[in-house]
C-alpha cells in the first residue's frame, strides 16, 4: 500500500486487547472520519471492518493473554481513509488459509470465520502481513464518497 500519498490528518492509538476496546476502536474511527460527514452505510462498513480487525487481535493474536493493539488512522488526499491495525501476538502461519471465508481456529467460541472476508468486502484494499511469533499487521484503504472535500477539514 502506498504511503507517499499526502496525509491530511493522522492519529495513532495504543490500547490493551480487552474486549470492551472493540467498541472504543469503532467510536475512535467514527470520530476520526466524522469531519468528512460520511454516509451512514459507509460509516457502518468502516466500523465493521475495524471491529473485525480489532476482534482478531483480541480473540486470536493475544488469545488468553492481554497485549497491545496499535491502530493508526490516516486521512489521505482524495478522501481516502487508511487504517492500520497491528499487534505483537502469535502471528498467522498461513495467511491465505486465514483469509478463506468460514475458516476459523476458534469454532467453539462461535467465531463465524468471516472476519477477513468482511474486511475485504467493506474496504477497497486489504493487506495482511504476519510473522508467526511476532505479530500481525492489517492495513485497509477505503475511499469515501464524501459530501465535503477533505481539504476543507483542515481549517
Amino acid at each position: 500500500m502506498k504511503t507517499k500519498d499526502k496525509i491530511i490528518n493522522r492519529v495513532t492509538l495504543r490500547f490493551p486487547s480487552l474486549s470492551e476496546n472493540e467498541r472504543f476502536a469503532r467510536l475512535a474511527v467514527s470520530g476520526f472520519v466524522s469531519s468528512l460527514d460520511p454516509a451512514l452505510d459507509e460509516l457502518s462498513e468502516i466500523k465493521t471492518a475495524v471491529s473485525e480487525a480489532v476482534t482478531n487481535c483480541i480473540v486470536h493474536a493475544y488469545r488468553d493473554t492481554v497485549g497491545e493493539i496499535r491502530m493508526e488512522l490516516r486521512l489521505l488526499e482524495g478522501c481516502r481513509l487508511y487504517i492500520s491495525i497491528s499487534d505483537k501476538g502469535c502471528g498467522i502461519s498461513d495467511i491465505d488459509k486465514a483469509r478463506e471465508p468460514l475458516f476459523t481456529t476458534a469454532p467453539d467460541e462461535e467465531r463465524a470465520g468471516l472476519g477477513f472476508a468482511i474486511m475485504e468486502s467493506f474496504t477497497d484494499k486489504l493487506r495482511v502481513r504476519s510473522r508467526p511469533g511476532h505479530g500481525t499487521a492489517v492495513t485497509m484503504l477505503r475511499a469515501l464518497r464524501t459530501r465535503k472535500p477533505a481539504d476543507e477539514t483542515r481549517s
Partner: protein
Amino acid sequence: MFYDGETRTVLAELSGDIDHCSAKGLRTPIDEEIMRRLPLRLILDFGNVSFMDSSGIGLIIGRCKLMTDLGGSVIAVNPQPEVKKLMELAGVQRLCSIVFKQRRSLIGGLTI
C-alpha cells in the same frame, strides 16, 4: 424474552451493539430459554440493534444449529439496512428467514 405456548415460539429482542464483547452475554439467556421451552420457532428481533459484526453472525448461526437439532427454526426480524447487508453477505438467509414484520403478526396471539 417472550414465549408463546400456542405457537411454541420464543422471541428474543436484541439491542445495542452486537460484537465479540457483547455476544456471549446475549447468547446465554437465549439458550437457557430455548432449553427450558424447547420451542419450534426462535424469533430474533434485530429492530434495536445499532451495530453488528461477524460476532452477530456467529450468534445467529449458533442458534440456527441449536434450533435445527431440536427440530425447529429461526427467523431474524427487523434488521436495519446495514445489519441486513452483513447478514446477506454472510449467507445467513440460507439458514434462516430474514423478514421485516411486526412481531404481533409473526407470533399470532401473543400480546406483548
